[in-house]
């Protein structure tokens, strides 16, 4: 194949991401699972890179969890989403960035449905006016927050204090990247690299000095799957998915995992504890697990944020071995101190997982 041909094909896998001026919506679950990720995103983009990212306290859930759990019909979710878009227009923005992969997938699904069925779009616009007295609008550009960090990856690298490099050996850290299923598996053209070659996290890791490792179950789901997790008796399915991934990546000895979804880092992190307690197996070095991070946390680490300000103490798998590898200083005594200096409480120590 000639080089120009390859470039042309690869161009189909690219996504247009505007440089600036975004209306930002948060995720329902990320703020409790990984409490500092969204704050870090806003701090990096607004204060470190000088971008215009606007958020309002008036936005709500996208309805994704209820929709995917069959608790609300699609039209209800669409009306909720239409309200979010209307808020964007009300505040004078036309680029929409969301923190959550589930939301991103649902926004894509909604936009595609409206494109396919204009009469349904009319109905939703009517619902929106009747219920909220807001004017219907659609974003000009819809991106996920990881798309933006991908866009700014080189600017972040230029301002970085640390690299994804083992300071003792000088070798790049071996990184597993895990993309949320709803990022590009449903609508491949909406993600950087499509569903076949998702590049959004790979680009970040490469720009920050790390080395991506490939393994057989790389594109396998983390196992969240909504109904698989929400009913306790079904959680074995969720756990088994994660177990399959860890068994597959174990021989490649990853140093860390980076993800861009709310559910994936949670389950890849917490299920390591459950696997350790039920099977007595750990996947990291010397009885540790493999630390799992959101892309904002990794960006924060390379930019020199304090690990405890990034909320890394809320992870199940201890992050200290990775911090040592990267040469990032941290104070163990401050691990469980809140922003006000008071102890936030310490979790019980697991039996198997260090």
């Amino acid at each position, binding site marked *: 194949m000639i080089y120009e041909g390859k470039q042309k094909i690869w161009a189909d896998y690219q996504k247009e991401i505007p440089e600036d001026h975004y209306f930002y919506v948060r995720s329902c679950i990320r703020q409790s699972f990984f409490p500092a990720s969204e704050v870090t995103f806003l701090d990096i983009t607004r204060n470190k890179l000088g971008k215009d990212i606007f958020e309002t306290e008036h936005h709500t859930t996208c309805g994704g969890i209820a929709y995917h759990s069959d608790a609300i019909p699609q039209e209800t979710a669409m009306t909720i989403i239409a309200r979010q878009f209307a808020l964007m227009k009300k505040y004078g923005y036309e680029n929409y960035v969301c923190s959550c992969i589930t939301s991103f997938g649902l926004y894509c699904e909604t936009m595609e449905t409206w494109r396919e069925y204009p009469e349904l779009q009319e109905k939703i616009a009517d619902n929106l006016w009747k219920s909220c007295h807001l004017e219907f609008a659609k974003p000009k550009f819809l991106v996920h927050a990881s798309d933006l960090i991908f866009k700014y990856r080189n600017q972040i690298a230029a301002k970085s204090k640390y690299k994804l490099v083992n300071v003792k050996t000088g070798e790049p850290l071996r990184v597993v990247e895990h993309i949320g299923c709803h990022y590009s598996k449903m609508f491949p053209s909406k993600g950087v690299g499509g569903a076949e070659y998702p590049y959004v996290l790979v680009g970040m890791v490469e720009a920050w000095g790390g080395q991506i490792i490939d393994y057989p179950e790389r594109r396998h789901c983390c196992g969240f799957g909504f109904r698989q997790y929400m009913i306790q008796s079904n*959680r*074995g399915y969720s756990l088994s998915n994660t177990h399959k991934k860890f068994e597959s990546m174990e021989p490649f000895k990853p140093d860390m995992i980076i993800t861009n979804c709310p559910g994936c880092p949670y389950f890849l992190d917490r299920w390591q504890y459950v696997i350790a307690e*039920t099977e007595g197996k750990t996947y990291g070095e010397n009885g540790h697990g493999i630390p799992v991070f959101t892309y904002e946390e990794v960006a924060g680490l390379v930019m020199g944020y304090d690990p405890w300000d990034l909320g890394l103490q809320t992870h199940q798998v201890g992050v200290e071995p990775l911090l040592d590898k990267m040469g990032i200083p941290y104070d163990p005594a401050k691990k469980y101190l809140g922003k006000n200096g008071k102890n936030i409480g310490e979790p019980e120590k697991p039996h198997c997982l260090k």
Partner: protein
Amino acid sequence: MVEFGFKLSPSSRINLDLRDKASFSKLVEIEPDALKCMACGSCTASCSAGIFEETSLRSALLGLQNGDKEKALKLLSHCMFCGKCTMVCPRGINTRHLILSINKIYQVR
């Protein structure tokens, strides 16, 4: 160990490298009907032994082809050779004889 109320599901991974190709070829040689099975499950549904112990010729044949010999032979270990499965097989397979041949080739005592 902590009890969570759920646990890992058994792996359904198929490793074809573990397949005993020679034995299965030998089986097909003397029992060509082994490849006729369309996995309808009539044999399993009508199995007398299956009421008491997990017994399934359909799953056993799949197991032999997918490299899970141990599981496959366990699924046939309670067969009483009553022959009811032969009577219900829509493909006309002599299932009773097939099970005997499997036991012979895979050296089940």
